């Protein structure tokens, strides 16, 4: 085979790979949507499950998902933004910042089952929260914290140094400079990170199932156990309860992720457009 032939073969393979990937994506999303959407009715979204989920709707799981996501973000967002501000504006590189970065990167690499284990050992048992929104939310907060820190840091670092100089020269303190000259510009980037983290919280199963439990009740307090959509989907599938409801729940999950991704992308494009001015 000469060079031209090799190239043709190689490029054909690569194109095949790329198209295959797109086909796979379409298949995965498509099958779930096609088989699941017909069952996604208003009653399904607002009703409560009956007969272990064979009948009825998934309202408690939607509420559970939202509750867990909110708790996780409420905890992780201020912590994450605060960390990012500290790392970018309040220190120069030192042993301490290197240690903090090591901690953040390592945390990002911990698999979700270990988070589930830890949450189970620490929040559920040691701190005696039981299977609860609180335990689940705290565990998820730790999972998404590195993402929020990373995106916030990136967003802050793209703010032009000139803004800081101007702000200082006009008599701002460091905190005033951060809040009036840096954060407003960094906000879209930060919010994108928060939205993506919410998506992560929605998709999580292993960490959630061992910290928030699997109870199908409507959540009433931070100490209520909840079942999220992802966990519900998992149980429906693995215990063979209802294929139809599983597909429907899966469809709702995918739609949620799609909406979250679209929202984040819209924000990113707005940021890019503004910067282009």
């Amino acid at each position, binding site marked *: 085979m000469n060079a031209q032939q090799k190239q043709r073969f190689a490029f054909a393979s690569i194109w095949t790979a790329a198209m295959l990937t797109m086909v796979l994506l379409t298949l995965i999303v498509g099958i779930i949507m096609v088989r699941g959407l017909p069952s996604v009715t208003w009653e399904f979204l607002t009703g409560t499950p009956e007969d272990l989920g064979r009948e009825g709707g998934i309202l408690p799981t939607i509420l559970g998902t939202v509750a867990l996501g909110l708790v996780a973000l409420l905890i992780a967002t201020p912590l994450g933004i605060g960390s990012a501000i500290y790392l970018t504006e309040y220190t120069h590189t030192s042993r301490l910042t290197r240690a903090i970065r090591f901690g953040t990167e390592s945390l990002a690499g911990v698999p979700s089952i270990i988070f589930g284990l830890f949450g189970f050992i620490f929040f559920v048992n040691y701190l005696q929260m039981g299977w609860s929104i609180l335990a689940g939310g705290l565990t998820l907060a730790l999972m998404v914290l590195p993402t929020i820190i990373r995106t916030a840091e990136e967003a802050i670092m793209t703010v032009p140094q000139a803004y800081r100089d101007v702000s200082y*020269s*006009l*008599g701002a303190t460091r905190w005033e400079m951060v809040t009036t000259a840096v954060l407003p510009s960094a906000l879209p980037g930060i919010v994108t990170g928060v939205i993506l983290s919410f998506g992560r919280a929605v998709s999580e199963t292993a960490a959630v199932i061992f910290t928030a439990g699997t109870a199908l009740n409507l959540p009433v307090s931070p100490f209520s156990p909840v079942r999220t959509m992802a966990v519900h989907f998992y149980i429906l599938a693995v215990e063979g309860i209802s294929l139809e409801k599983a597909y429907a729940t899966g469809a709702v999950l995918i739609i949620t992720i799609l909406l979250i991704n679209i929202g984040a992308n819209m924000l990113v494009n707005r940021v890019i457009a503004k910067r282009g001015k």
Partner: protein
Amino acid sequence: MDVKIEIRNYSLSYGQDRILDDVTLSIPRNAVLAIFGPAAGGKSGLLRSINRMAELAPHEHHTGDILMDGQSIFAPSVDLPTLRRRIGMVFAQPVALPMSIYDNVVYSLKLMGVRDRKRLDEVVERSLEAATLWTEVRDRLNTSALNLSGGQQQRLSIARALAAEPEVLLLDAPTAALDPISTVRIEEMLVSLKEKYTIVIVPHSIQQAARVADYAAFFLNGKCIEFGAGNQLFVAPQDKRTEDYVTGRFG
């Protein structure tokens, strides 16, 4: 010569890099002092030392003293934000903060907690007038400052600095990024401003220095080589290095 700022044996380094070396210089009140010289001569470092922005850089270290109105700016009792407000700074690149023209100008006032709308309006008009920008933007104060041209943004930067009612104005190559017309406007503005302010400018050319300066200082490699009034440094420099630079033998 009535001295506003006195620099005494001041040296500045960022880590291993020596920026200024034992500089002693008196800055006259209500006059324009031009600090000129080749690149990396320490001119920006000097400006940033006067409003204590130099210490924002990592591993900054300085010795010596700088006094304004007879008092050291490094004294522990000095409130940094207040000091910086007494000294206005304009940078080489025009910078419009990502907010409206109005908000840009009143930025420092809002930091100080001024909320009175009437007062803010008055300051906006006065500052933009002094910066010769008022007539061009008076109808669109609430639009984004990012839409202004480079020359307009630079004049906005000056208005923004003036709004804080400083006593000193430091300008680091303010017309370097501007077209000739904007440059002329700003130079004329400076001449009118010196009645109220002590002005230190790093000109972007010797010609500019000659046009605007009442006094001039030549900086080379972090040292102040020569200081003189009027055009003395340009037409009759005492030091050979000054002469070499002014006549273009290096630069």
